[in-house]
């Protein structure tokens, strides 16, 4: 750590060393981080790892359909996790599906964070009527749950645009709808931080020095609101992945030609009664493990950074 001290700011390196220390002391955090890193790397390099391209329907052979995983009788060594009813290799489909789920989750949270942080900074810094208007909007937005808004929005747009057009833009729609619906989570927390920081002397001195409001908000106040933002972000990514999976499960998300984890689970559900458990179970386990490790990391981070989160945000 000492080598870095000279390069980074004193305070942040102190914070970092504390952070790293408690990370090394927490077996749950280490295991979660390793599992998360493995899943994320597998998802990132899916095109190179996956045995076949699960989007290329020409590669499927109907003769290979519904083969069980390798370790079962009738398993085929070509398909580690078996195949789905179309003869698609489950391992490849899961790798690509995880990639999509993670991508949508992270992008949606980026949208949330951008909107929420901007609105939170403005509401907290400017205050007054604008603040109460924005916060009232946040209350109303929060009371409509994301999933409810997303289901209705996507269902209606699917009906209006028809499934062909819908399928083409499904990924953007998912990102936007999950991203826009959850901005109040960030806005409330950032606003609470701004209200606490605004009274402090360093903000006064920055103002006396003649810095503009934008600079004070972004360069001075925002860095002090980073730890709660980190904590929220982990939980939000986990929630976004669950939302995306739920929407795809209902057929309101990714198209069948590009299945995400939720759609894989849903397509396997029809076959669970005939005993083909692996089509649903394996993507299901991957989804749960992915969300669980992110939640565990978030929980650990909440304990370490101990931000005063806006009460009732959970």
């Amino acid at each position, binding site marked *: 750590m000492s080598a870095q001290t000279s390069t980074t700011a004193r305070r942040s390196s102190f914070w970092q060393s504390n952070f790293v220390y408690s990370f090394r002391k927490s077996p749950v955090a280490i295991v979660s981080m390793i599992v998360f890193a493995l899943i994320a790397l597998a998802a990132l390099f899916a095109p190179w790892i996956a045995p076949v391209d699960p989007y290329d329907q020409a590669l499927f052979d109907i003769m290979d359909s519904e083969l069980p995983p390798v370790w079962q009788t009738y398993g085929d060594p070509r398909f580690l996790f078996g195949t789905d009813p179309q003869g698609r290799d489950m391992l490849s489909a899961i790798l690509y599906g995880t990639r999509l789920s993670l991508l949508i989750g992270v992008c949606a949270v980026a949208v949330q964070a951008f909107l929420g942080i901007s609105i939170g900074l403005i509401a907290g810094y400017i205050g007054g009527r604008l603040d*109460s208007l924005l916060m009232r909007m946040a209350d*109303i937005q*929060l*009371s*409509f*749950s994301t*999933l*409810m808004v*997303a*289901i*209705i929005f996507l*269902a*209606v747009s*699917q*009906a*209006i645009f028809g499934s062909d057009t819908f399928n083409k833009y499904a990924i953007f729609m998912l990102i936007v709808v999950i991203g826009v619906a959850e901005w109040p989570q960030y806005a409330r927390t950032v606003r609470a931080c701004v209200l606490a920081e605004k009274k402090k002397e360093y903000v006064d001195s920055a103002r006396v020095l003649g810095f503009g409001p934008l600079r004070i908000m972004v360069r001075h106040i925002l860095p002090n609101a980073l730890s709660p933002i980190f904590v929220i972000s982990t939980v939000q990514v*986990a929630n976004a992945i*669950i939302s995306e*999976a*739920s929407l795809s*499960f*209902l057929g309101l998300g990714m198209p069948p030609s590009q299945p995400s984890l*939720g759609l894989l*689970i*849903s397509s396997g*559900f029809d076959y*669970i*009664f005939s*005993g083909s*458990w692996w089509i*649903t*179970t394996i993507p*299901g386990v991957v*989804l*749960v493990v992915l*969300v*669980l490790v992110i*939640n*565990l990391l978030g*929980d650990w981070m909440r304990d370490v950074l101990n931000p005063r989160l806006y*009460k*009732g945000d*959970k």
Partner: protein
Amino acid sequence: MFAYLVKRAFQAIAVMFVISVVSFAIQDNLGDPLRELVGQSVSEEVREQLREELGLNDSFFTQYLRFAWKALHGDLGTSYFFKEPALTVIFKKLPATLELVFGATFIIIGLSVPLGVYTAIKPNGLFARVVMGLSIVGISVPVFLTAIAMIYLFSVELQWLPSFGRGEVVAVFGHWETNFLTVDGWKHILLPSIALASIMLPLFVRLIRAEMMETLQSEYVKYATAKGVRPMRIYFIHALKNTLLPVITVGGVQIGTMVAYTILTETVFQWPGMGFMFLEAVNRVDTPLIVAYLIVVGFIFVVTNTIVDLIYGLVNPTINIARMGA
């Protein structure tokens, strides 16, 4: 108090207004009512005439006023698929969904209070750690996966419980059919209720635990202990009362989430309720039914949210109610 009431009522009406405009805009853009009425085989002139008679050439504003006027009189159009008034269709499906929500709420309240209080009293005990560990797993499992896992275990493997439908129902008060009067009905509602409860339960256990731990640190609890009040009385009478306030607020926020999860749960279990009906209506582009669902759900949602807010204002004596709406 009165000013607060008026403010909340005004806000509820405003939200309801926005919902109705959105619903109307959807109706305006989704599908062609003429095609549903007369099919393809009618000449363009007759179409134009019908269009004029039905008022489809009027401005958006005039059409909206007509729509709102009819809606206020309980007329939300006729479902294309069921050939019945959309509101009638929804009221037939409503009991199934409400009973499901009731079952889930019963499980949530019945389990979250004792578990939350226990984990707050003995935060380091083995059982409390197991509960907290399970609660984070519970948050991480999407509701449809819980449902599928339970169907696989209890319906496919063990064959103890049915996997779909409502089973045998008994009619009470006219249209209301209930699951709670037959053994078969109980068997059918058990799995969907648990699935619906599974996602909320961990949230409430964690919330009650957090609030309870904070309350147990307060002066009046210490004083009650020093006075020699029995611990059980302190936990459940003195402390629990004060933890319920935030629980009510969060509960209010969760109503919308509950609506979304009924859609998911009903889809997996093919439960003949409103949520399942809504998805079917979307697939059939049954516009009046979609719009009626939005209005009814929006209405239930706004009313419950307003009531929750009012209760919160009533039970919390520290809040200056008149200012809360500001």
